[in-house]
C-alpha cells in the first residue's frame, strides 16, 4: 500500500479540514529529498508549492470547497510548462528557460486544488525509453537501482512508485507513459489522441503526443483524466470529453469480448513475461470475460512507421530551438549560420540530433514519397486494422513491453535495440486509441505491465474495464 491514500480521499480530507495542504506538500517535499538518490526529479518548486498550499488551507478555513484535487501534490514531467518554473524537457538547449505561460493540463489540475511540487526527469524532449537520453542524468528504477525506470516519463513513474506524490503527469508519444509504468510497477494511462490538451507541453511528435497520468490505481488515474479531459481553445486537435465523464462505475466484465493480440504474444516476448500475461488472461476468463486471440498483421510494421513519422515531426518541432530568442545560445559565433550550428551542436544531445537527421532525411524532396508518405499509408493500415478489430472486440490486450526493465547502459550503444522496447506501445499512438498499462505481477522481482486497448473515445469504458482487471490481479 502506498503511503498516500486515494486522491479522492486526500481531497475530501483537505476540503473537510481534516488534512492540511501545507502538510501534504511538506510530506511530498520530504519524500523527494529522501529519495534524491533515484534522480527522479529535475527541480522542486518548494516556494510556489508552499504558497499555493497556504492559500488552499486558507480557503478551506473560510468554509470553501476547494475542488476535487484540493491540496493534492503532484509532479509534472519537465516538458510541461508550469508558471514560474524552469521547463527544460531535460535538454541543455532549454536550460534556464522559465515558462511565461502555463500548460492547459496544469491549469485544469490547479483549478481543482492540485499543487505541482516538482518537475520530473525524462529522456531529453521525450526521446527515449529509459531516461538515459536525459541531458542531465539517468533516473534509477525504484525496484532495482541498476536498472532503468523506462522512458521517457521515467522520472514521473519513479515519483509515483517512490511514493513522492499520489500521481504524476507524463506524455506518451510511442509508449512514454506506459513503458515506465510497466518497468516500475504503477498504472500509466495514454488517453485517446486529443482528449487532453497539448497546449503548453513541449512538442515531440505532434500527431501522436498524448498527455496522461501515472498513478497508484485506476481510480486515481480516472479522476485525473476526468479533470484534464476536454476541448481546449488553445489546441485545435482536442476533442469533446465523454458526456458521461470518466468517474468509475461498477461494471460487470462477464461477457466482455477481449482480443489477445497475436503479434504481441509471440516471438521476441520474454517467456516469463508471457507467463504473467497468460495468468492475467486466465483471471479475466474466470471472471467471465470472453478472450480469444486476434491477429492485427500490420502491427509489427508499427515501429518502423513510428520511427519515420516521429523523427519527421521531431525535426520540425525542434526547429524553433535556435538560440535566438530563448534557451541556450553558444557564444562566439561568427555569423548567423555559425550561431545556429554552434547552438544546436551543443544544445542538443545525441538522440535529438539522430532524430533531427532522420526526420530531415525522410522529409527531403526525393525521399518524401518513399519514407514519409509510405509511412502515412501504413499508418492508415494500422488504424484500419484496429478499427476492424474493435468491431468484434470491446478491448484488446497484450503485454506493455516485451521484457522487464533492462540494465542501465544495456542498450545505450544500440539505438535500434532501444527502439524495440516500444514495439508494443507505438501502435496505439499511431491509431490514436486509448491504452493503459497495469501492474501484472513480477518476473525475478521486476514488475510486468499488462496493456489494455480500446477504440478511440472509449476511454470511459477502458478505465472501467481496467479497474475491474486491477481488482482481479491484486484483489
Amino acid at each position, binding site marked *: 500500500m502506498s503511503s498516500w491514500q486515494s486522491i479522492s480521499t486526500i481531497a475530501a480530507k483537505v476540503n473537510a479540514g481534516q488534512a492540511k495542504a501545507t502538510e501534504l506538500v511538506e510530506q511530498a517535499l520530504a519524500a523527494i529529498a529522501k529519495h534524491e538518490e533515484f534522480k527522479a526529479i529535475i527541480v522542486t518548486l518548494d516556494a510556489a508549492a508552499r504558497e499555493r498550499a497556504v492559500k488552499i488551507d486558507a480557503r478551506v478555513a473560510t468554509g470553501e470547497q476547494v475542488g476535487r484535487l484540493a491540496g493534492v501534490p503532484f509532479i509534472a514531467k519537465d516538458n510541461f*510548462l508550469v508558471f514560474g518554473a524552469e521547463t527544460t524537457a531535460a535538454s541543455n538547449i532549454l536550460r534556464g528557460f522559465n515558462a511565461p505561460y502555463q500548460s492547459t493540463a496544469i491549469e485544469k489540475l490547479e483549478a481543482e486544488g492540485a499543487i505541482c511540487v516538482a518537475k520530473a526527469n525524462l529522456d531529453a524532449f521525450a526521446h527515449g525509453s529509459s531516461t538515459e537520453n536525459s541531458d542531465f542524468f539517468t533516473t534509477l528504477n525504484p525496484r532495482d537501482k541498476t536498472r532503468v525506470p523506462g522512458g521517457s516519463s521515467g522520472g514521473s513513474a519513479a515519483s509515483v512508485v517512490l511514493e513522492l506524490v499520489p500521481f504524476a503527469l507524463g506524455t506518451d508519444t510511442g509508449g512514454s507513459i506506459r513503458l515506465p509504468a510497466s518497468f516500475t510497477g504503477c498504472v500509466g494511462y495514454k488517453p485517446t489522441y486529443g482528449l487532453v490538451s*497539448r497546449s503548453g507541453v*513541449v512538442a515531440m511528435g505532434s*500527431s501522436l503526443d498524448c498527455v496522461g497520468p501515472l498513478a497508484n490505481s485506476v481510480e486515481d488515474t480516472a479522476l485525473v483524466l476526468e479533470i484534464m479531459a476536454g476541448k481546449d481553445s*488553445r489546441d485545435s*486537435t482536442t476533442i469533446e470529453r465523454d458526456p458521461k465523464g470518466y468517474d468509475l462505475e461498477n461494471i460487470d466484465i462477464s461477457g466482455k469480448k477481449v482480443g489477445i493480440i497475436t503479434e504481441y504474444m509471440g516471438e521476441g516476448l520474454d517467456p516469463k513475461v508471457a507467463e504473467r500475461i497468460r495468468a492475467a488472461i486466465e483471471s479475466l476468463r474466470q471472471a467471465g470475460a470472453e478472450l480469444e486471440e486476434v491477429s492485427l498483421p500490420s502491427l509489427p510494421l508499427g515501429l518502423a512507421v513510428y520511427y519515420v513519422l516521429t523523427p519527421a515531426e521531431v525535426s520540425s518541432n525542434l*526547429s524553433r530551438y535556435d538560440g535566438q530568442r530563448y534557451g541556450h545560445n553558444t557564444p562566439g559565433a561568427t555569423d548567423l549560420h555559425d550561431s545556429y550550428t554552434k547552438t544546436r551542436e551543443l544544445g542538443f544531445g545525441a538522440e535529438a540530433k539522430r532524430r533531427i537527421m532522420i526526420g530531415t532525411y525522410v522529409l527531403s*524532396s526525393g525521399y518524401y514519397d518513399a519514407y514519409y508518405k509510405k509511412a502515412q499509408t501504413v499508418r492508415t493500415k494500422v488504424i484500419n486494422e484496429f478499427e476492424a478489430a474493435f468491431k468484434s472486440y470491446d478491448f484488446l490486450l497484450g503485454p506493455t513491453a516485451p521484457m522487464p526493465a533492462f540494465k542501465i547502459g544495456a542498450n545505450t550503444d544500440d539505438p535500434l535495440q532501444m527502439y524495440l522496447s516500444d514495439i508494443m506501445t507505438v501502435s496505439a499512438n499511431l491509431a490514436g486509441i486509448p491504452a493503459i498499462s497495469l501492474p501484472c505481477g513480477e518476473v525475478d522481482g521486476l514488475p510486468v505491465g499488462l496493456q489494455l486497448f480500446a477504440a478511440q473515445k472509449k476511454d470511459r469504458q477502458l478505465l472501467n474495464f481496467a479497474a475491474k482487471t486491477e481488482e482481479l490481479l491484486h484483489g
Partner: protein
Amino acid sequence: MSNEDIRNQYTVAIGIECHVQLKTKTKLFSGANNDARAAAPNTLVNHIDFGLPGALPVLNEKAVELATKAAFALDTKPQLFSKFDRKHYFYPDLPMGYQITQFDEPIVLGGHVDIIVDGEKRRIGITRAHLEADAGKSTHPVGSDYSLVDLNRAGTPLLEIVSEPDMHSSAEAKAYAHELYLRMRYADVSDANLYYGNMRFDVNVSVSKTDELGTRTETKNLNSFKSVEKSVEYEVARQIELLEKGQPIIQETRGWDDAKLKTFSQRSKEDAHDYRYMPDPDLPPVTLEESYIREIEKSMPDLPDDYRKAFDGIGLTGAVSEDILATPVIAKMVMRAISFGAEHAKRIAFWLMQPQSEEPEGEDVVVDVDVEKLVALSEMVGENKLSSTAAKEVLSDMLKSGEDPEKIAESKNLIQVSDEGAMAEIVTQVLADNAKAAEDVKNGEMKAIGFLVGQVMKASQGKANPALATQLIKKQLGI
C-alpha cells in the same frame, strides 16, 4: 535587324504571385493584434508568434472567410477541403523555424482575372490561392554587426494568389496587378494598401522563341504597379540580350532596385532551400460547408466589374470609369447616386473624380458627405439655380462643413437669378451702357453677344443664368 525586330521574335511569358495581406483583427494563428502600422516593434507578439515551446496555432476563422471572399473576387469558389503544411527554413524572423502555409491543398484552385490592355480584353488564369502566415521583419542597420527583428508582422495572414504565365507584356503585367488590387479592395478582403506593403508582387518572367516556356527568373517583393511594369521591361530586355549573345538564362531569384530601375541577382536555384514540406499536425484540415460558402457569396459586396457595368449604363466608360473606380469611396457614392438618376450620378462622378496618381497613396481618400446632399446640389444645377462654377464652390464648402448645399449657396449668395423681371432690368441697363456692342449684335455680329452676356454676369455678380441672359438680350434687341 532592329532591336524591335529581334524582340518580336520572342514570346514573353509572365506569371505573377501576389501576397495579399488580409484585413483580420488578429493574426492567422494567434490572438495578437494584426494592425502593425503604428505599433512599436515586438509589441504585437504572443507565445504563438514568438514560437515558445508548447505553443500551438489556432486558425483564425475570419481569414478563411476573407479567403472565401477572395475566391469569389477571382471568379471562382473556395475548395471544400484544404489543409495547412509546414515549410521549413531557418531565419531569425521565422520563430518556429517553419512557415505555416498550404502546400498541396490550397483553399482556392482556379479562377481568373480579366484585364483590358490597348482596348482588348484578356483573361488571366489563376492557378491557385493559398493562406499562409507572414514572417517577421528583419533589418540590417548599415555598418553595424547586428540585425534587428520585429515580429509584429509574424503571423499576419496572407493570401498568396498565383497566376498562370498568361501575361505577355509589361503593360499586361501592370494591368493584372492593378486589377487584382481593385478586386481585393472591393471584395473587402484587404486594405490593399501598397504603401504599407499590404500587396506585394513576385513576378516570374521568361522569354522564348519557341512554344516552350523559357527559363524564368523571379523578381521578388515588388510593391508598386510601376515596379511591376518596369521590372518586366528590364527582365525581358536583359534575357533577350543574354540569349542573343548565346548566353544562358539562370533560373534565379532577383531583387529590384527602384532607384536604378534594374533587377539584380539574389539567389540562384542551386542554393534554393529544400523546404521539407509536411502536413501541420497541429491544425486539422479546413472543411467548408456549401451553406457557409453560399452565405458568404450572398454577402459579397459589388466588385469592380459590377461597378463598370453600372457606370457603363449611365455613359461613364473607359478611363473615366477607371478613374472613378480608383477611389472606392467615390465609386460607391456614384453607384448610390445612380438610383437618383443618371444625370446626377454623372455630375457627381465628375465632381468627385480625383486627379489620378500613378500609385495609390499611403492614406485613403476620405470623402465625408451624404450622397443625398450631392444629389441635392446636382438638382440645383439641373434646375439652373447654380452655375457649374458656383456648384464647385458649394461642393468644396460642403465637403468641409457637411452643410446643406442650399444653405451654402444662399449664404454665399450664389443662387442664379432666373427671375425674368429682375434679369430684364439688368439686361436693359447693360444694353444701355454698351450701346456699341448692342448695335453690333443687332447688325448680325453674334460674337458680341458673348461680351454682353459677360457684362450681365458681371453686373449680377455671377448669379445670372447665362442662358436666360442670352435669351433676354436677344429679346430686348428684337432679334
